[in-house]
């Protein structure tokens, strides 16, 4: 920690007031996912999560911040069990989705309820724009063409991409710009109608304009589903989230309403991080 740090009372620099913050005193939404004593790691290397406790509330945006390597990706990948896809990865603890034990669920069923958007846009290279969005439905056996077409349009609209691609639905998805590809991936995830959408640094490969469009769309869809977004852009966390989680070295340091975390963090390490003194 930086000894040249300025007065600790000074509020975080350059952080706009949290637009997405819940109105003070508003009733808390019900918990949709809860995590208790979650520990996780990889075949090689040290343990990545040292016992994390967390509650994610329905139809809110929760941001996870922290320096790289602190376990943000590991944490959200445990929520839809994408963590176990990595050979040798392990996790233990109690993760619940609406009361059901996530570790006992069929991962295939779980992942339809808890969708994911990755750091780099990853549209399927052999598929058109339309097929990409429809893929989750089609690969899971949906045959009703009218229903598929309807869901594709609806998902593209929710991902704020419809107007840009409605004339090139049968062009390859990989032919779009980076920002469009990422919104395509969001539409693809939305088309399965998940309850929870996990996003792992979805804007880190995008330019500021494309980033702004994604933040905008998050604010639009957040009253329809629960969003957990990993970001190491603190302004972004402040702009889009109601709740913020701060992690450090595999531990959850602080968790609370975004406004509170950014204006009066209760842990010295959180304060140091959001004022840019380390990380």
């Amino acid at each position, binding site marked *: 920690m930086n000894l040249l740090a300025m007065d600790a009372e000074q509020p975080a620099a350059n952080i706009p007031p949290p637009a997405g913050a819940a109105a003070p005193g508003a009733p808390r939404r019900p918990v949709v996912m809860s995590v208790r004593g979650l520990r996780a790691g990889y075949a090689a290397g040290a343990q990545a999560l040292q016992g994390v406790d967390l509650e994610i509330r329905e139809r809110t945006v929760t941001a996870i911040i922290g320096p790289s390597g602190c376990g943000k990706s590991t944490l959200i990948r445990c929520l*839809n069990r*994408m963590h176990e*896809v990595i*050979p040798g990865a392990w996790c233990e603890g109690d993760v619940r989705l609406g009361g059901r034990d996530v570790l006992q669920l069929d991962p*295939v*069923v*779980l*992942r*339809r*309820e808890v*969708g*994911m958007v*990755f750091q*780099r846009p*990853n*549209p*399927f*290279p*052999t598929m058109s724009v339309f097929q990409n969005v429809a*893929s*989750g439905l089609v*690969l*899971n056996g949906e045959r009703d063409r009218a229903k598929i077409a309807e869901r594709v349009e609806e998902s593209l609209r929710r991902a704020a991409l419809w107007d840009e691609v409605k004339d090139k639905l049968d*062009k*390859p998805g990989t*032919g779009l710009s980076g920002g469009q590809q990422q919104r395509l*991936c969001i539409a*693809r*995830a939305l088309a*399965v109608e998940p309850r929870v959408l996990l996003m792992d640094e979805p804007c880190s490969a995008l330019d500021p304009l494309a980033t702004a469009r994604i933040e905008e769309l998050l604010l639009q869809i957040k009253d329809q589903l629960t969003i957990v977004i990993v970001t190491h852009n603190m302004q972004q966390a402040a702009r889009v989230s109601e709740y913020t989680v701060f992690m450090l070295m595999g531990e959850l340091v602080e968790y609370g309403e975004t406004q509170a975390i950014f204006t009066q963090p209760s842990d010295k390490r959180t304060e140091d991080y959001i004022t840019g003194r380390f990380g």
Partner: protein
Amino acid sequence: MSGHPARRKRTNALMLGLTALCALLSASALFAILGYIAWKGASAVSWAFLTRLPVPVGETGGGIANSVLGSLEVVGLAALIGVPVGVLGGVYLAEYGRGRLAFWVRYAADVLNGVPSIVVGLFAYALIVLPMKRFSALSGSVALSVIMVPVVLRSTEDFLRLVPGTIREAALALGVPRWKVTLRVVLPSASRGILTGALLAVSRVAGETAPLIFTAFGNTFWGRGLLEPVATLPLTIYNYAISPYDDWHRQAWAAALVLMLFVLAVNLAARLWLRPRAAN
């Protein structure tokens, strides 16, 4: 760093020249072979040559129609057996194979790739010809498919490994079962490469002669089904070439030209197929 500058430069020029010469030599071998075969064989190739049966020595106007058809039959059936086995094995190695079994399969495939083709022919002879007490197109196909499998297997594995892991993750995260991710997302992403590998394997076995000597055996008439001996281009070329007759020698050259063009066409198709398409 060491040596005289002028001498170093001379050595450099010499080495460069030598490597260029060798590169040129290896490339020109192809054109020399092609040119020579065309020169010797082109005059005997005609529509009648391609569509007629062989005639006894002394008569003129014989063709190689039965060999062309036999080759297509034997190689086609070999591909029907060898390509699926190779592709599925390659899928196993690339998508699921991490343990000891995968290591041994991979190792066995590489060794099999180096087994002399006449040994493979003997294997098919012992496995099929002896128990059935007859030479057959089927036994020839089995021999060729044994040669194809390791080629297809390893090329399938290689092309599947080129499919980025993020694609698999994206599909898994949509709640798609693993086997469907492999079948519907990963395999199509690698399909051009896999098909290319299969075509190269076809062009490789189309010219194999040794494994057919005591399996497909040869036939001066049309083959009568998979369980009968059948004429194939490489064996016909061999038989004609070692005969004492000038007319047969000419036909051997012509048949060689036909075979060469077939192999070349398949090869070219495979490479054109793999060439990245212009982005639209």
